[in-house]
Structure formats: structure tokens, C-alpha cells
């Protein structure tokens, strides 16, 4: 279904697409000009962002069109590159934590690859670059958010409960026991947006995969079920990523002598 969608967009509809994009740009600029009446000056930034967004998406289309001819291995390499980029983004939330980039990469790669492997093995995903890359990118993007959210929540919770954590350590608790409530909180934080996504599925929004499948002529019922499967897989990948990221950060939050290292910076 993705191949059909891509083909239809690249082969016949470039002119139409550009015209539609122009209409969208005009509408966006109109909204910005309206905002200007209320002293909100975002004209230049909006114009630049619109042009940049259009160019980036056109380039992505070109690259995808070229890659659709490639092998599955190329798809795997693309997803690997995406995972590295996602890890670099997520690790910004983990500044000050040792090996933040590696932790983020391991977590995102683990969550995404396990889910993608299951999807491929069960036939939910076709073993072709045309399906692997778009669906894989959705899963990696959500895993990236889950990774950042879990790291940020864990850091915030531990930072806010240094006294409780150290009280546990002072009573002879293992570090894992001392921070157990904050691990739970961090993993749940990584799942929460995806749970909300599942709850609102079809009621508040109809995600891109279903829209694309409908545009390419797929059965609406099948498109709906397939969309659910993709969102459920995103939930699974996010949960796994959040869990792995939190557990990896947890081990780095303590010294080998079970001293809490992850706390608001102040010499003690």
C-alpha cells in the first residue's frame, strides 16, 4: 500500500501537490498576518519555516523514491542512521549523565528493533524497504520521545527525592530498591502519551498511515485495523525503550559504592 501511495504522489501529482502546498502556504501566512494585528510578529520565521519544511519534505520524497529501488539492507541502514540521530536528540535531555548518547541509542535501538523484528516475523510488515522505512521511522520517532521522556522524568523524580533515596541507601537498601518508585514513574511517563494516542485513535485523530492507505484505495476497515496495529506497536516500542533507558540511567545514577551521583549539582 505504501508503494502505491508513493508511486501516485511521485508519478502524477507533483504539479497538483505544489499547487496544494501553495494554497496551504497562503493559508498559513494569512493566519500569521492575522496574528500580526495583535502584535505577534512571526512573519519572517513562519515564511522561512514553511519554505524549509516544503523543501525538506520534497527532498525526503526524492530520497525515498530513489531508495524504493534499494534492497532491504539499505532500509536497515537507513533505520540505523535514524536511530543514531534519534539518540543524539534524546540525549540532550540527559546532559550530565555519563554515556547519555550510548544509553539513548541502546534504548531506542532495543525498543525499535525488537518491535520491528516481531512485525516482520509475524508478517504485519512486508519485508520491503517501501514499508520498513516509513513504519520504522514512525516507531523510532516515538521511541525517541519515549526515551527522552523517561530520562527526564527519572532525573526529575530522583532530583526531587534525593532525601528519600539516600534515606533508603543509609538503611542498607540496594540502589535499585532506593529508586524503584522513580523507575516506575519514568517508565509510565514514557507510555502515557502513547496510551493517550491509543485512547483517542479514531475519535480525535486519524493518523497518517490510515489516511495514506485510504488515499491509495485500501479498504477503510482494513486501513483502520492496520493503523491500530501500528499504534499498538508504537506503544510496545515506547514501553521497551522507556524501560531500557530508565534501567540504563539507573545504573549510571550510582557509583560502584552505591552513592547517589544523580542529584542537583552542589558540592557536598
Amino acid at each position, binding site marked *: 500500500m505504501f508503494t502505491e501511495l508513493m508511486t501516485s504522489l511521485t508519478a502524477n501529482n507533483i504539479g497538483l501537490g505544489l499547487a496544494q502546498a501553495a494554497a496551504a502556504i497562503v493559508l498559513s501566512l494569512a493566519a500569521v498576518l492575522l496574528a500580526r494585528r495583535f502584535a505577534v510578529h512571526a512573519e519572517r520565521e513562519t515564511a522561512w519555516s514553511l519554505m524549509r519544511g516544503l523543501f525538506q519534505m520534497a527532498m525526503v520524497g526524492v530520497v525515498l523514491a530513489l531508495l524504493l529501488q534499494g534492497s532491504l539492507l539499505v532500509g536497515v541502514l537507513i533505520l540505523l542512521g535514524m536511530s543514531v540521530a534519534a539518540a543524539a536528540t534524546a540525549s540532550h535531555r540527559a546532559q550530565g549523565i555519563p554515556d547519555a548518547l550510548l544509553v539513548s541509542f541502546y534504548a531506542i535501538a532495543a525498543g525499535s528493533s525488537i518491535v520491528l523484528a516481531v512485525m516482520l516475523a509475524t508478517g504485519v510488515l512486508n519485508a520491503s524497504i517501501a514499508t520498513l522505512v516509513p513504519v520504522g521511522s514512525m516507531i523510532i520517532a516515538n521511541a525517541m520521545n519515549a526515551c527522552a521522556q523517561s530520562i527526564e522524568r527519572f532525573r526529575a523524580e530522583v532530583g526531587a527525592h534525593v532525601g528519600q533515596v539516600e534515606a533508603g541507601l543509609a538503611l542498607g537498601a540496594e540502589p535499585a*530498591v532506593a529508586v524503584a518508585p522513580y523507575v516506575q514513574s519514568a517508565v509510565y511517563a514514557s507510555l502515557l502519551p502513547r496510551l493517550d494516542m491509543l485512547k483517542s485513535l479514531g475519535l480525535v485523530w486519524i493518523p497518517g498511515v490510515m489516511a495514506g492507505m485510504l488515499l491509495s484505495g485500501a479498504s477503510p476497515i482494513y486501513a483502520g485495523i492496520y493503523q491500530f496495529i501500528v499504534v499498538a506497536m508504537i506503544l510496545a516500542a515506547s514501553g521497551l525503550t522507556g524501560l531500557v533507558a530508565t534501567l540504563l540511567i539507573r545504573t549510571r545514577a550510582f557509583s560502584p559504592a552505591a552513592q547517589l551521583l544523580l542529584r542537583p549539582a552542589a558540592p557536598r
Partner: protein
Amino acid sequence: MTIKDHNTRDEVQVVAPLDAPQFRPFTTNVVAQRPAPLSARRLRLGIALETRNLSRAVAGKVLVNDFNVLLIPGEVLAVVGPSGAGKSSFLRLLNRLDEPTGGTVLLDGQDYRQLAPRELRRRVGMVMQTAFLFPGTVAANIAFGPRQRGTPISSEQIEALLQRVGLPSYGDRDVNNLSGGEAQRVSLARTLANSPEVLLLDEPTSALDDASERAIETLVLSIVHERQMACVMITHDMAQAARIADRTMVVEAGHIVAIGPTEEVLHVH
């Protein structure tokens, strides 16, 4: 007078050497339990804890510089000094919540780096300035320490501890419903449940009213003497040091500036 205290490497101002006879400047029911001079008790009881050139510096800032201190079972050492002097930093080094950058601590003659941190912290218990009770019941908090080492504590033992700290039948209470003084007593009972050999107290009465403060002091003293624990207590209150401590150590800018019998150290400072 300036003399060389064998407890420290540097020449410090103290009013008498460690082994001088002890005098308690107040009268409570626990004074009668403290008859022996420290030297005699040290011979009899040995050394509970010793710091050797204990130091910690972070980012070039010296927090604790070359501390040499001996503690014997049943002794209370008060640590006094201005804010930021290094009192809490010193205390945190004693149960290795922070890592020394120099020197070490001997617990019953053994370098504490040879002990597993969990075992060390069971033996060197700490009561913090804030109680930091875990959500749940009082009984669950008291059972926390023993549970960590797989040693269940019976409800009778919990009740006995609660009675000892003056909170009989408090086991089922939610910790959210305790006053500050009650919470600090639970914190003390929670630490005692681990049967520590050394008790560290980080200004445990600083947030309490006078009556609660005196009650906790009396309780701590009686338990320390009853269990023959060595006790280090941080306080910003010289009067409190005078009420409870056998010896007092004055700390400024990460350095020991005096250590000796409380009455004499406080007389000089």
C-alpha cells in the same frame, strides 16, 4: 591553651586531651549512667570507629580536610560549626554516602572500603535532619532496613522499638499523619531496627520545638548508652552540644579547629 590532640594530625586548640575525665554540665537521669573516663572505657570497649586523614574535596573546594577522630562505644561526639563548615560532609563520609578523596574510616578496626556498602550502612546508621519517611505505615518504615538484608522483623519487635521511642501502638499509622517530632522518632526507630554499632545524627532536632527537642535528646542519650553505640551528632546549637555530648568537635571551613571534652571546648569557643 594549645596542645596536640592525638586525635588529629594538626595542632589544634583543645581544652584537654581526649583521655581526660569527662564531666557532664547538666543533670538528667542519664548522667548517672556515665561514670567512666573515656580512656578507661576505650581500653575496655575498644574503638568503634576511627577516621584516618579523612578528606573530601569537590571541584577544588575542600569540604573535609584531614580529619582524625576516634569514637568509642557509648560515646557521644557533637560536631558544631557554622553553616558550610563541613559538618554534614563529614557525617556523610562516615557511612560512605559520599566517597572520601583522601584517607579512610576504620569500623571496628576494618577499613570500611572492604565492607559492602549495604553492610557498612547497616552498621553505621544515620538519622537525617528531615525524617524522610517512606510512604505507608510506621511499621513498614521500621521493617524497611531488616527487609533489605532478608531478616524479617516481627510485629512484636516493631512494637518494642516503637515503645522504646515513645510511640506505642503507632505501627498502623500512616506516616502522613505524624507530627515532626513523631516522624523523627520513627526515623530513629527505623535506624535502630538495623541494630547499628554507630549512630549518626544530622541535626535531628533542628525542625522541632523545644519540648520535642529535649525529648529526642533524652531518648537518644538513653538509647546510645543502653546499646553502647558510638554516636556522632551534628548540631548548630552549642547548648545542645553541652547537654548531650561527651566530646565536642568544632569545625570551620573543612578543618577541625578544636576537639575535646565538651565543657572545656565550649568554654573556649
